[in-house]
C-alpha cells in the first residue's frame, strides 16, 4: 500500500511498508519513466519522486503512481557486483569481539552474505548495503579520515567509502575496486537494487 505525503510543489514522497516494497516501487518507477519525473530517491521505506513543475504536478504524479503495477522485485534487478576485499581493517578485531566470534568468522559472514544496495545518500557513490547478519555499533569516536575503498560495518549495514572522508563505521577491510569514477557512464559502482558479493583476497 503506497501512501503519498506532501513534499512541496516539486516532489511527492511515496511511503511504503518496508525496504522491499520501496525497491519494488523504485523499480516500477524507473520502468515507467513518467513524464516530468526528473529524479528518484529510494530510501528505507520511501521513494522521493522529484518532478519538473513545468511538465507535471504533484497531483498528476500521485495519480500516475497509484495506477502503476508494482510487482515483487528480485533484489539484484540492476545487476550483481563482486568486490574483492583484503580483510585487514583496523576494526576487524573489535567487530569480532563485539559479535563474540573470531575475525575469520567475521570474514566468512561478510563474504557469505548476499548484500543488496538499499539506498545511497551519504556521498556520491556510497551505497547502504543490507542482507548481512551483522549488528555492530558505530565507533564511539569517528575517524577524521577514512581512505577511499575502506569496507565498513555500522548497525545492520555494510558499505564501501567511495572517497577519502571522515566516518564512524567499523572498518574491516579495503578494496581496490573504484567505487566512483566520473569517466564511467554510471560513475557509481553501487546503485540501489544492485546485488553485492564480497570476496576475500590476499593482501
Amino acid at each position, binding site marked *: 500500500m503506497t501512501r503519498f*505525503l*506532501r*513534499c*512541496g*510543489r*516539486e*516532489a511527492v*514522497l511515496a511511503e511504503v511498508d518496508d525496504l522491499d516494497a520501496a525497491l519494488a516501487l523504485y523499480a516500477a518507477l524507473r520502468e515507467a519513466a513518467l513524464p516530468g519525473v*526528473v*529524479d*528518484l*530517491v*529510494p*530510501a*528505507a*521505506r*520511501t*521513494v*522521493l519522486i*522529484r518532478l519538473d*513543475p513545468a511538465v507535471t*504536478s*504533484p*497531483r498528476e504524479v500521485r495519480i500516475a503512481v497509484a495506477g502503476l503495477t508494482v510487482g515483487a522485485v528480485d533484489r539484484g534487478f540492476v545487476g550483481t557486483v563482486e568486490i574483492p576485499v583484503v580483510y585487514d581493517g583496523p576494526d576487524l578485531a573489535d567487530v569480532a569481539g563485539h559479535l563474540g566470534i573470531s575475525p575469520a568468522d567475521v570474514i566468512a559472514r561478510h563474504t557469505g552474505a548476499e548484500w543488496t544496495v538499499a*539506498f*545511497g*545518500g*551519504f*556521498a*556520491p*557513490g*556510497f*551505497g547502504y548495503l543490507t542482507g548481512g547478519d551483522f549488528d555492530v555499533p558505530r565507533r564511539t569516536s569517528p575517524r577524521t579520515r577514512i581512505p577511499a575503498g575502506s569496507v565498513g560495518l555500522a548497525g545492520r549495514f555494510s558499505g564501501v567509502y567511495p*572517497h577519502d572522508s571522515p566516518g564512524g563505521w567499523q572498518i574491516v577491510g579495503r578494496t581496490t575496486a573504484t567505487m566512483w569514477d*566520473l569517466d564511467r557512464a*554510471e*560513475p*557509481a559502482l553501487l*546503485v*540501489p537494487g544492485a546485488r553485492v558479493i564480497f570476496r576475500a583476497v590476499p593482501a
Partner: protein
Amino acid sequence: MTVLRTGPLTVFKDAGRPGHAHQGVPPSGAVDRGAYRRANALVGNPAGAAVLECTLGGLRVRFDGPVLAVLTGTDAVLTVDGRPSDVEKVVSIPAGAEVGVTQPRRGLRSYFAVRGGFDVSPVLGSRSKDRLAGIGPVLGTTVRITDSPVSEPEPSFPVGLGDLTLEVDLGPRDDWFTAAAVRTLFSAAYVAAPASDSVGLRLEGPALERARTEELPSEGVVRGAVQIPPSGQPIVFQADHPVTGGYPVIAVLTPAAADLAAQVRPGAQVRFRRARLID
C-alpha cells in the same frame, strides 16, 4: 576573462544536475533560481547557461574583449573601471576594463552572467559547483567565454528583497510534531545563524517539539525542506542539500520562497507563513 580576485565565495552555477540521485548525487544548481534565470535572460543567454554565483561580492575580473554582462539577485552592482552601474542593469564592458562586484547591502548571493556564457566543462551534465558533494567545475584564473547562440535580451525586473516571510506547505512529516510546534512555526521569528551556507540556512529561535520521538529512517529531501534536528532549530535546505536526510521535515518552502531564502543573510529575521494550498 581573467579572475583577479574571487571575494569570499564565487562558484559556477547553472540549473543543476537532476537525474543522478540514485548515484548519491544531489541536484545542486543556483541557490536563488529566479535570480539565476533572470541573469541569463537579461543578456540573452540560453536558459541553462553557466553563471558565477558570488556570495557577498568581492569578485574582480578583466576581459580580453568587449562583453555584455549583468549582475542579479541583490542590490550589489557591477563596477567598470571603478564606475558603478545600476542594479540588474545590463552593462557593455570594453576590452581590457576591470570589472568588480560590490558588496550587497541587501541580499547575499549575486549572479554574474556574460552574454554567451562561461565555457567550462560540465560534470554529470551540469556546470554547477556542489560544495557538499565536491562535484563541479573549479573557478580558475582564466575562463573562456562561449560564443554560443544567444537571443534578444529580455527587459529587467526589479529586485524585491523586503519581505522575509517564507511561504511553506506543511509536510511530509508535520504529523511528527506537536500541534503547538506547528503553531510556533507560523508565529515565531527566527534568526539566520552564521553557520548557514549553500547547503542549509540554519535558523535560531523557539525549538519545535516532536510528537513522535522514534528515529526516522533516512529519506529523500528537497530544496526548501525545513528539517528539524534534535535541537528543534530549523534548517532550510538550499541548492547543495544532501540527497537524503535523517530528521523529519515539517514543511517545504514554495519555489519562490526558496529563492528568497537564498538571499537571507546571517543575523536577518525570517518568519514562516502557510502558502495558499494548490494541488
